[in-house]
């Protein structure tokens, strides 16, 4: 667990900060970033704050002073529109200044509205079009497998993203090549751009589907840090691992939860104040 010797210290997270506290900071940042950028996807970002906090607090081996450290664990955000959470995690763990977060999407900013690796330390891959990041992650995992490297590869995909055929091409491949060093986390908030997944392209049962593709599947409450930590720290042997994380879109801000409007709307005025007040009280 953790970066080289100790994730929490080396990643620049204050030693006293728990993963829950980190998650809440990510939520506050996420809402602030959506407010200043006036861009969409705040609910998608809130959905993954606990997953990302546990990854950066308890799981990933990273070094903010050496972002390209060869033995680092690879983490790819395949649902690139939820990038504010990851930018915030990188800032909170010392990859760049927290002060920069609210420049996201502003003229000349390096922090784009879909995650980018260009000039942003700690980001492995630029995504934005769905169904790409998981496949690139498979390539990174394949490299480790073929060359006996110890790093693990994690990729976070959306459940709506699982509509994309390329996700299942990758699922076939990772099973065939026994990529036990690859962990896919599905942010299963049951919603996608135009409504509920079941009403658009019903996956019926996502966990069953990944299992049917030969993966080891672990279902967790995607807001329960204990369950997340246990699942994400579990290494596959030969089977790649899929953590199906049941989440709530917009988690943490009551009026945004399970409300599709907040896939698109940016918080302003009273909405912004109320969201921050609720998060700061948590």
């Amino acid at each position, binding site marked *: 667990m953790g970066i080289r010797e100790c994730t929490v210290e080396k990643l620049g997270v204050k030693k006293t900060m728990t993963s829950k506290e980190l998650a809440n900071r990510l939520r506050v940042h996420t809402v602030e970033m959506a407010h200043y950028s006036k861009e969409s996807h705040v609910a998608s970002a809130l959905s993954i704050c606990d997953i990302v906090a546990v990854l950066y607090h308890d799981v990933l081996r990273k070094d903010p002073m050496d972002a390209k450290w060869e033995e680092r664990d690879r983490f790819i955000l395949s649902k690139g529109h939820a990038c504010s959470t990851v930018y915030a995690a990188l800032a909170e763990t010392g990859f760049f200044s927290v002060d920069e977060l609210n420049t996201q999407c502003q003229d000349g900013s390096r922090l784009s509205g879909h995650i980018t*690796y260009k000039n942003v330390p700690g980001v*492995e*891959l*630029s*995504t*934005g*079009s769905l*169904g*790409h990041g998981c*496949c*690139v*992650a*498979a*390539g*990174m*995992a*394949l*490299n*480790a497998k*073929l060359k006996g490297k110890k790093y693990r590869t994690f990729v976070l995909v959306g459940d709506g993203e699982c509509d994309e*055929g*390329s996700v299942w*091409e*990758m699922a*076939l*491949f990772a099973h*065939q*090549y026994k990529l036990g060093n690859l962990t896919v986390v599905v942010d299963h908030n049951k919603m996608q751009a135009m409504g509920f997944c079941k009403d658009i392209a019903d996956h019926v049962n996502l966990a069953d589907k990944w299992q049917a593709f030969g993966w080891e599947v672990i279902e967790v409450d995607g807001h329960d840090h204990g369950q997340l930590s246990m699942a994400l720290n579990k290494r596959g042997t030969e089977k790649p691992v899929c953590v199906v994380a049941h989440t709530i879109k917009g988690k943490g801000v009551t009026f945004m939860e399970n409300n599709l409007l907040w896939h698109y709307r940016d918080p302003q005025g009273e909405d912004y104040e109320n969201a921050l007040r609720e998060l700061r009280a948590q």
Partner: protein
Amino acid sequence: MKKALINAVCNLMDENENVYMFTADLGYGVMNNIIENYSEKFVNMGICEQNMASTAAGMAMEGNIVFMYSIGNFPTLRCLEQIRNDIAYHCANVKIVAVGGGFAYGNLGMSHHATEDIAVMRAIPGMTVFSPADSSEVTAVVKEAAKIDGPVYIRLGRGGEPDVAHISLDINKVMRIAERESDSMKPSIALLGTGTVVADVADASKQLKETYNVSAYSIPKLKPIDMDGVLEICKSNDCVVTVEEHNIVGGLGSAIAEVIADNKVGTRLIRIGMNDQFTQVVGSPDYLRHYYGLDCAGIVEKLHKIYEVEND
């Protein structure tokens, strides 16, 4: 061409342990040398071109050189966004190999006719584009591609292409294959071909000698193109003719037009290729080249007609 490709890749594998060959389940019989002798470097991705392109990008980002192989439009158009976003944007060291550019799979129908691939690959920032004409060009292209730290597209024929009689062989340059006469009053034309039509271009240059003072060239590297070489040809000829087994939009003809326009050269340009159309018939590559006027007879007929009209 396929054999030359595989042999050249095997040579690279001997020199560099980080060279891999991915295929989207094509290359039966072709890949034997790699499968038998470099099995740990060979990955059959299944019929999954999108995942192949992205996985190749991921492998390349870890310091490898990945050749990704398929036929026709499958390794380009089928996974274009993966090539753009994952390979090219990340400057990943992936060499995209398409066997069967143009009409190589002519009998098999429109799905297998690759006549827009050069245009599409040329439009991607950072992509180097090669379209070799014969085995010697393929060998040189693979060596050159390995030296390039970034994405490369290599468009091949299907096999059995005749050897081209190069007067010079520098894969980065326009390569002369027929010299013009030094002392002639006839109008001078330069025939420029790329890939599988170069043999027809060479034949046409011989048949046009009575009418024109003809030189001919093979241009395997379409992007970045040999600007100085093309300019020299344009400045020293009355007319430049491009021939390609490809749409006239975006391919060799367009590349030459860009050089002419960018450098304020007034040379006349005639583009011979598919006239912004899909194929409507099937047949052997020879049949289709003839049907669409891209073979020796078609080139000669078109240029004779132009001569007759202009000297009437």
